[in-house]
């Protein structure tokens, strides 16, 4: 039901009461963790958007210098893309009831994510070795800030990933919510992939 049709209801009328009395009380049939993830992703999206707006706003000033583009960033982008893909394959494997394969892809996704974070730290080291410090220019400062923020979100994801790995060992249990957890983890990884790709594009275009 659209927000407009909800807002146009007249809850005091007896006709509407007949409909309302049958309402379950939930606005969506989605499980709670899924709703929580979606709402969280919206808030994170707002956060990254506002940083990006500040980035674009600050770029307009005369002292802005073009950011160097270490080739390692392309490699890192490929790694995080593969990590997201590994999550995708893990969810597909689970659908085929192949738990062993699911777990393998899950481990691969985590390892690739750690690889991406390490790669980003190497990019930082490279920039520092060239004398591009955080205080040298706002473009560098933004680079360090945005990549750090993205890494922090990935670290948060890795904590969730640890729980999912743990659950994967009890996946055969009837009561296990492993499939949902894995699915949500995968969605979060795809989201962070998208965030990275947008940030990377923004960095490239400046």
């Amino acid at each position, binding site marked *: 039901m659209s927000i407009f049709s*909800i*807002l*146009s*209801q*007249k*809850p*005091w009328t*007896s006709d509407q*009461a*007949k409909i*309302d*009395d*049958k*309402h*379950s*009380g*939930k*606005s*969506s*049939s*989605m499980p*709670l963790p899924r*709703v*929580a993830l979606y*709402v*969280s992703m*919206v*808030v994170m999206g*707002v*956060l990254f958007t*506002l*940083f990006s707006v*500040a980035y674009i*706003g*600050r770029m307009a*000033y*005369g*002292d*802005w210098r073009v950011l160097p583009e270490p080739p390692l960033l392309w490699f890192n982008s490929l790694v995080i893309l593969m990590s997201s893909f590994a999550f995708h394959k893990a969810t597909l494997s689970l659908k085929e009831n192949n738990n062993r394969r699911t777990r393998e892809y899950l481990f691969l996704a985590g390892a690739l994510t750690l690889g991406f974070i390490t790669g980003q730290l190497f990019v930082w080291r490279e920039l520092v070795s060239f004398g591009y410090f*955080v*205080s040298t220019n*706002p473009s560098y*400062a933004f680079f360090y*800030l945005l990549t750090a923020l993205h890494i922090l979100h990935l670290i948060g994801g890795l904590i969730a990933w640890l729980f999912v790995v743990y659950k994967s060992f009890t996946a055969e249990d009837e009561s296990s919510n492993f499939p949902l957890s894995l699915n949500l983890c995968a969605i979060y990884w795809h989201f962070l992939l998208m965030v990275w790709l947008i940030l990377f594009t923004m960095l490239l275009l400046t």
Partner: protein
Amino acid sequence: MSESIIPESELEEVELYHPKSWWTEKVFSQDAKLIAIQYGLTAFAIGFVALVLSWFMRIQIAFPEMAIISEGTYYQFITMHGMIMVVYLLTALFLGAFGNYLIPLMVGARDMVFPYLNMVSYWTYLVAVLVLFVSFFTPGGPTGAGWTLYPPQAILGGTPGQETGIVLMLVSLCIFIVGFTMGGLNYVITVLQARTRGMTLMRMPLTVWGIFTATVLALFAFPALFVSAVMMLFDKLLMTSFFMPALVEFGENLSYGGGSPILFQHLFWFFGHPEVYIVALPAFGIVSDLISIHARKNIFGFRMMVWAIVGIGALSFIVWAHHMYVSGMNPYFGFFFATTTLIIAVPTALKVYNWILTLWKGNIHLTIPMLFCLGFIVTFLNGGLTGLFLGNVIVDVPLSDTYFVVAHFHMVMGIAPVLVILGAIYHWYPLITGKMLHDGMGRFHFWITFVGSYLIYFPMHYLGFIGVPRRYYEMGQTEALYTSSAADLNVFITIAALAVGFAQLVFIYNVFWSAKNGKVAEKNPWKSTSLEWQTPEQPPIHGNFGKELPVVYRWAYDYSVPGAEDDFIPQDVPNEKVKLAEGYTELGVEKT
């Protein structure tokens, strides 16, 4: 007539957390009601600090020859007073305290959907408060940058608290936002997914609508404050130049260069203006419910009230730059923001009309909550009208740095929501404690607070008109520019402020005294329809609603329904169980 055939519950019964020790029951509790009280007490404690700061400032302004505080301390007190009141008191009270207490009870849930996260949210808030409070005792003291923390001066030498105070303020804000986000997720998802059977969104009381919409606003707006705080921390600690332009300080070139203080202002006010409505929308919701209950009449224009809450929430994101007219902007921008500011007055005025029309021919009970609501309506109207003045660029520019603005925002954002908070406490105190607050002390509290507030802020408009600047520690030689009445008025205002402050002490005494000695509250003492009063126990215990969750059959405003014997029908009573008044065959249908 509604049918009583109720579908099987789609909501799984929540496995409630059962505390295993005194610590997990009383301190690290996951019960939203206790978390609400923890939020409330913490917010009031730090709010009291801010109140005391204002007394010092008022005494200094009225009696500058006493020099009760230094210039630097004055700025520090202004800053801490403003930030504490806006963020750590009002936001925390409306969303953390009222949100936690009322959302699960009013929508018919056993608790918030993520109780553990809810508990962590409170403790994170407490850490934020403590970090802020610690800044009073650090070298250089708290920041004196003004509550808007504008760079570059916020982090430069010469501004009090430049050493550590500003860092602690920014860190505290970041912690607060993280904590709030955890709570905010809970409030939004509980409203969306944990309502009881029959509780459609449009059957929710306006209190829940107000808190829900304000939480959504906060989830969108607080990230802007987070972004600006993090970037300013970088500027302060890592010498970046996000906001800092090239500067010479005490004859020395600083390493900053090229940054934009205006960028900070845009980010800050992108948070700052919705913040006004983060505070106002819950107040609107609560006052709507209180007026309806204490006037024994359904709220006038319910749907319009919901639309206005949602509309104000949306519009609040496109008015922010009206706080920045004096920063200089393209006249077309000024025109745009002045126009949106005037447009937002439309749904706001609509709410005021609806409150008045709810009162019209109502069975008005002049209870203490109702007195506070009536006080709110006129105060909000006053503050709102001066907002229309200040929303226009050409009026704002000369008035911007005067006491007119101080009067405006204290009326609309200080006194008005505080009156609602106080009214709400008198209203829900019997539910929370099982006791009634003392009526005599309550009436004394209301009249001194209400009349006293007008004695404080009405004269300030006049001070603003004659050009008395705000933020001045003392007028000094500038006194020659104003009539002597300005100084006399400042003395008068200070005496009124101290009297209002004293009345708050009476209120605090009343809260603690009544908890022990107050009259035991009868069940549902205000004869309210909403679910929080229909719990088996009063105060409600862990899990809120006995063995089974209530089922909702009607909206929250069935007061004085023709044909019903009582003048209210609780939301969980089906039509078949409503006692009919003599001469009626069913609700609204008289015997022929």
